[in-house]
Every structure is written in structure tokens, then in C-alpha cells.
């Protein structure tokens, strides 16, 4: 059948079950955007900035596990997506980005709005393609989805010259995708699983260290079965949150720089760490040589290049997290972990997270921890929580109790400020999603504030929470702790009136400055239909504790106020 390039793309998107694409039009994608008008079963969500299109696709993918799709124009349209693509790459999020390119005959001539997008995007994509022969397009699209979603997921970019979008070809989709150099991870080797279980059985202080890979693999149930069967305490990374419900007795909460005292203590004392789908990020390990210094280490990851990358391990297992956890769960039975669990329990009682209930705050003081705890109490885990980057992100990680897999969407590895609002936009397009709550600081919120326009035009039911401390809190915290409180570029006394800004986009907003107003404002927001913004004027000197400073170890932990 003769089809033009745009029709081939629409067909591929439908074959892959894509319901919506996030995009922004421009000269080199006019034919492709036009084709969307012929299809009522696939929507093109127009955002207000290309970077936001990538974050929106990312938010959708983090929540659903299905790839988000982005279509933007050439040149600046494409380069604007790069931060969003890098964010997805770092956190292994499946994404397809289709960029328009200048006409085939003028590629390489510095034509209007031309960039070498293949070159620019190469280090931040799992793979990318420049399509110069339309006959290859059906196969390239199939390969792109296959590569993006299998193995360790990641973004795949397709650069498509505008002339090919209107040219026709009779090329068909292929029956079988064959990519000789691309191997899928093997099934978990049962001898290795058995060895891992033997090591676990012999250990007296085991800990499961769970990363984003477990959420990506939808392996929460398998994790729970194994952890419960063998009674092993579980700590998660930021991206692993929700893989086990944080109100489960075996959950130690998050580990790492701003992790709980208990989780970091347990890692420090452990004699066996089982790392699954985690990559020993420096924000988790601190000083690597002193990370879990007494422990034998088992590392399970489907990416062989992660094993022994940071920490030499005693047993490396290349396998999908779900597969491994399911297999080891079959072998597991109760081991004598009673003394270990008792010890953890007493540490937990003696070292709780800093807690700010209403009574403890001074008059006029509004603590971000309290605001988040109240959201958590009202939502009872039934929410999609999107957080931006900075202090508020860590407060959310610490004080919101995540009870479901994939319920905390945040930029972990790259730490992209401006992520939350567009990612929340994307999350709203997942079928049957829970209440979306988007937490931002006053800094990051302004990095993609234009997406209030998208929120308005699609009437997306997001509760937008701006925790305004009138400074860039995380950097300021480092300045306070390590730079003699010299606030180079971190104070923002002139931060705008966010309520007025919301009103400018016809989104209702309110400001909360007193602790007594917090609960009524949350209750109002959670019963509101459609988007709503609440700005909380929080204590400008809040610090995130506990903290193990960068490059330090457990003994250097600052427990805080």
C-alpha cells in the first residue's frame, strides 16, 4: 500500500498502541502534524515548550511503563528536547522522539533551523536514526519502539526530513525485528539465584537495596514476596520508592545522602547487601569504600556494564529484576533474622525523621515537612506524586509515604529542575490514574512555568503545590553547611506572586502562610475539579536532614534539628 511518511508514522503509533503524542509544531513537521487531523483516535497534545514535551512523555512513561512519544520540529525544536531526553536516559525511561529535519538535499548546509540532531542527541539516547530513505521508515519505527522498551529502557530518537513526510512509499512493516548486535538480557541463571539464596540464608544482617529497576520491571509484588518470605528489611533509592509500600514493617525508607538514619545505619551494619536494579549512585553511596563496609554484595542488574562499575561485588547476576526476585522468592524461607530486625526496630525508634506537627511549629513558622506530611495523610498513598528537584524533592521523598509502585515520578539521576510540572501533565494522560499532585520549589517551578498553559488548555486535574522559600534551597543549604553561608545567587526575594500568575492562566490559586491554613487548603484542593495551585510560604531556612554530605560516610551523618 502506498503511504506517505506521515501516514507511516501514524500507522506505527497506532500499531504500538500509542494514544497520545506530546509535541510542538514547526516548519519541518507541518506535514506530519497535518496528518494527525485525519485521525481521531490518537491525540496530539500541544505543550508550550519542546523541553516540556519530552518531560511530559517521560512522566507518562514513568507512570505507565509504556513509551512516551514526542514530536517536534528541527533545529531549536529538537535541541530544546535534549534536557528532557537526557533526563529520561539517565533514569532508563522508554521514550520515542521524532524530530523534523530540513529537506534531504539541504542537510549539512546550515539550512534554516537545521542542527545535527543525530550528533547532538547521540550521547543522551539509547539509539538514534536519521532516515534518509523512506523505504526504511517502517522498519526504523518498529526497531525504535523495540529498542526503547526492551532490556534497559531508554529514549530513541528518529530524525525525519520534512520532504519524506509527504513522499510516498510502498514499504511495509517487517514481520520480525532483527537487530544482530542487540541482545536482550538472559533469564536469571538458576545456579546464580541459588547461590544468592545460599548467601542470604547464611547472612545474619541482610538488607535489600532496591533501585528504580524494580519499579521499571513492575516487580513490586515479587519483591514483597521475597522480602516477606525471608524477612529481609528493604531500603530503596529515590527511584525505587513505592516498590515496597513504605508503611510495611520491613521498609526502612530511602537510603543515601538524605535517606533515613535507619536505612543508612542498616546498610552500614549489614553483612549482606542484595542490590536489585540499583546502580550505586554517588548520592546513595557517599564514599564508596565505606559504603556497606561489612557486607558481602550481590548485585542484580539487567545491564552487565553496571556490575562492578562502582563497587566490586561478590556475586553479579545479569537478569531482569522481576525474573530474579520471582526465582529467589521461590527458594526463600524464614531465616533467623529476629535479632537483626529487633536491632533495626530500636534504631528506628531512637532516630525518627524530623517531625513537625502543628503543635511543634512556632507561631508564624510553616515547615515544608509538615505540608507534605499532611498531603500524605490526606491522600493515604493514593496519588501520583510528581516532584521537581531540590529540597522539596527530598522532603517529599522523606515525608510522603509511598505505598504503590511507580507512584513517585521524579528526575533522579539527572536532577532536572523544571521536570515536575510537564511530567505531571504527561501523567494525566495515563488511563485511570490517581490524583496527580505536583510538588515544586519556587526555583524549579519557574523553569517550565509556561506549562500552566497546557494544564489550562486540557483542563488537567493537577494539584500544583509550590513550596516557596524565596531561595534556591538545596544550594543554599550547601552554602550554609560548607560555604560559610555565602549566598552566591541563591536568594530570590523578588520571586513572583505565583497565585497571580496562576490566575493569569485562568487557574485558581491560593496562598498559605500560616500553619492553621494548611489542612483546609489541602482539603479544598483535593476536592476541587480541574487544576488548582497552592503556594505555601515556607520557612526560608529549612534544611533537609538527615544528611550524609557528599563523599562522606555513615559516621558523618548530620541528623539535624
Amino acid at each position, binding site marked *: 500500500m502506498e503511504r506517505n511518511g506521515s501516514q507511516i508514522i501514524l500507522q506505527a503509533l497506532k500499531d504500538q498502541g500509542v494514544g497520545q503524542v506530546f509535541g510542538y509544531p514547526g516548519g519541518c513537521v507541518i506535514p506530519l502534524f497535518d496528518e494527525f487531523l485525519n485521525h481521531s483516535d490518537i491525540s496530539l497534545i500541544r505543550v508550550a515548550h519542546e523541553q516540556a514535551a519530552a518531560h511530559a512523555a517521560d512522566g507518562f512513561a514513568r507512570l505507565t511503563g509504556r513509551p512516551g512519544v514526542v514530536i517536534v520540529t528541527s533545529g531549536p525544536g529538537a535541541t530544546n528536547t535534549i534536557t528532557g531526553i537526557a533526563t529520561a536516559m539517565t533514569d532508563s525511561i522508554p521514550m520515542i522522539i521524532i524530530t523534523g529535519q530540513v529537506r534531504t538535499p539541504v542537510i549539512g548546509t546550515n539550512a534554516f533551523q537545521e542542527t545535527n540532531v543525530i550528533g547532538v542527541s547521540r550521547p543522551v539516547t539509547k*539509539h538514534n536514526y536519521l532516515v534518509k530513505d523512506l523505504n526504511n521508515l517502517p522498519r526504523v519505527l518498529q526497531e525504535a519502539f523495540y529498542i526503547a522498551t526492551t532490556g534497559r529502557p531508554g529514549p530513541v530518537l528518529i530524525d525525519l526530513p520534512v520532504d519524506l513526510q509527504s513522499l510516498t512509499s510502498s514499504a511495509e512493516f517487517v514481520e520480525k525485528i532483527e537487530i544482530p*548486535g542487540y541482545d536482550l538480557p538472559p533469564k536469571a541463571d538458576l545456579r546464580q539465584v541459588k547461590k544468592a539464596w545460599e548467601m542470604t540464608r547464611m547472612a545474619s544482617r541482610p538488607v535489600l537495596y532496591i533501585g528504580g529497576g524494580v519499579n521499571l520491571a513492575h516487580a513490586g509484588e515479587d519483591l514483597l514476596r521475597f522480602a516477606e518470605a525471608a524477612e529481609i528489611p528493604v531500603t530503596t533509592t529515590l527511584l525505587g520508592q513505592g516498590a515496597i509500600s513504605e508503611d510495611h514493617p520491613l521498609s526502612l525508607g530511602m537510603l543515601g545522602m538524605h535517606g533515613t538514619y535507619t536505612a543508612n545505619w542498616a546498610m552500614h551494619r549489614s553483612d549482606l547487601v542484595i542490590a536489585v536494579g540499583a546502580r550505586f549512585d554517588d548520592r546513595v553511596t557517599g564514599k564508596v569504600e565505606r559504603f556497606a563496609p561489612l557486607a558481602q554484595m550481590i548485585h542484580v542488574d539487567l545491564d552487565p*556494564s553496571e556490575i562492578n562499575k562502582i563497587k566490586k561485588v561478590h556475586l553479579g547476576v545479569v537478569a531482569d529484576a522481576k525474573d530474579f526476585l520471582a526465582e529467589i522468592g521461590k527458594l526463600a524461607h524464614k531465616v533467623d533474622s529476629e535479632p537483626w530486625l529487633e536491632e533495626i526496630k530500636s534504631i528506628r525508634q531512637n532516630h525518627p525523621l524530623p517531625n513537625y506537627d502543628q503543635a511543634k511549629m512556632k507561631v508564624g513558622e510553616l515547615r515544608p515537612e509538615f505540608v507534605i506530611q499532611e498531603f500524605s495523610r490526606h491522600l493515604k498513598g493514593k496519588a501520583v506524586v510528581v516532584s521537581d528537584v531540590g529540597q522539596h524533592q527530598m522532603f517529599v521523598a522523606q515525608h510522603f509515604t509511598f505505598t504503590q509502585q511507580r507512584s513517585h515520578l521524579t528526575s533522579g539521576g539527572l536532577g532536572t529542575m523544571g521536570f515536575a510540572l510537564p511530567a505531571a501533565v504527561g501523567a494525566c494522560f495515563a488511563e485511570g490514574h490517581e490524583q496527580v499532585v505536583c510538588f515544586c520549589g519556587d526555583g524549579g517551578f519557574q523553569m517550565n512555568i509556561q506549562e500552566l498553559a497546557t494544564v489550562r488548555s486540557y483542563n488537567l486535574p493537577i494539584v500544583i503545590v509550590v513550596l516557596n522559600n524565596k531561595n534556591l534551597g538545596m544550594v543554599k543549604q550547601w552554602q550554609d553547611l560548607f560555604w560559610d553561608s555565602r549566598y552566591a545567587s541563591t536568594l530570590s526575594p523578588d520571586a513572583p506572586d505565583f497565585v497571580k500568575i496562576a490566575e493569569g492562566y485562568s487557574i485558581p490559586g491560593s496562598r498559605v502562610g500560616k500553619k492553621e491554613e494548611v489542612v483546609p487548603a489541602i482539603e479544598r484542593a483535593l476536592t476541587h475539579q480541574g487544576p488548582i495551585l497552592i503556594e505555601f510560604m515556607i520557612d526560608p531556612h529549612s534544611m533537609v536532614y538527615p544528611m550524609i554530605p557528599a563523599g562522606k560516610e555513615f559516621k558523618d551523618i548530620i541528623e539535624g534539628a
Partner: protein
Amino acid sequence: MEHRHIITLEVEDKPGVLSRISTLFSRRGFNVDSLTVGHTHRPGISRFTIVVQGNDQVVEQIRKQSQKLIHVLTVQDLEQKRSVMREFAIIKLDYNLEDSKEINEIVDLYGGRMLDSGEGQLIVEFSGTEAKINKVFRKLEKFKVLESIRTGKIGMQIGSL
């Protein structure tokens, strides 16, 4: 431990494959001593030989990362004791009659070939191990070398993989 590593990769002949591989090596700040690429007997398959100095553990990680590239089929860190390596060099010399005898002796001794002579210039070729090519360059130092080029290493493991 810092060592010299000779890595061979078999790749699909696709656009961008050279750039992807060199990006991986440069990201860790490796100095690539040499990089040689060419076709193999199998259509559509090329082979790289890359020589780098680096920390063993980091090289091992890069080897694994290269294996992840979509168009890379196999990656091997050659065991130097169990492999054959060759380099190739072309050298242009300024010469006069009294030098010619000695130059010819060097060419013969090191199994080189005269590729061109005339207009007071000679072009000679040599192939062999890196040590041999180094020696040839040293021997020719006393003459006036006008231009020279040497390929990087190409290499192959002895026995089956």
C-alpha cells in the same frame, strides 16, 4: 592498574558507528593511541582495532558499554601474548645516490618495498610489529624523512574465540 589494551570490535557497517564508539572512549578521557577500522570478509561487517592506555577496570567497563551499542556485534580485549598484531607504514625520503645503497639494505633487511623512486625522492613501505616499525623509523632517522604515515595496529587472537 594502568595497562595498554588492544580492543577489537566487530560492528555492523552503519552510519554513526565510528562516532558512537569514539564517543564512548573519549567520555572517560582515554587517550586512544590508535584506531583502525576496515571491512572484513563478511559483507556489511567491519572490524575496529583500538589501542588505549587505561585503568583495567575502566577499560573493562568501556568494553561492556561498547557491547551495549546497538551496532556492535562482538568486543574483545586481546590477550597480547596470544595474538598477532601488525602495523603498516609508508615513508617518503629525500635521497641522493650515496644514500641509496644503505636505504636499499634497510628496505631488504626489514622486508620493506620500494613503492616509488625518482625526482630525488623515494617512497617505501614496511609492515610488521610495532617494535619493528619503530626500529625502521630509527634506522631511517639519519636520512631526510619528508613525510610519513603509519596505521594503527590491527590484530587478531590466535586460536578460536
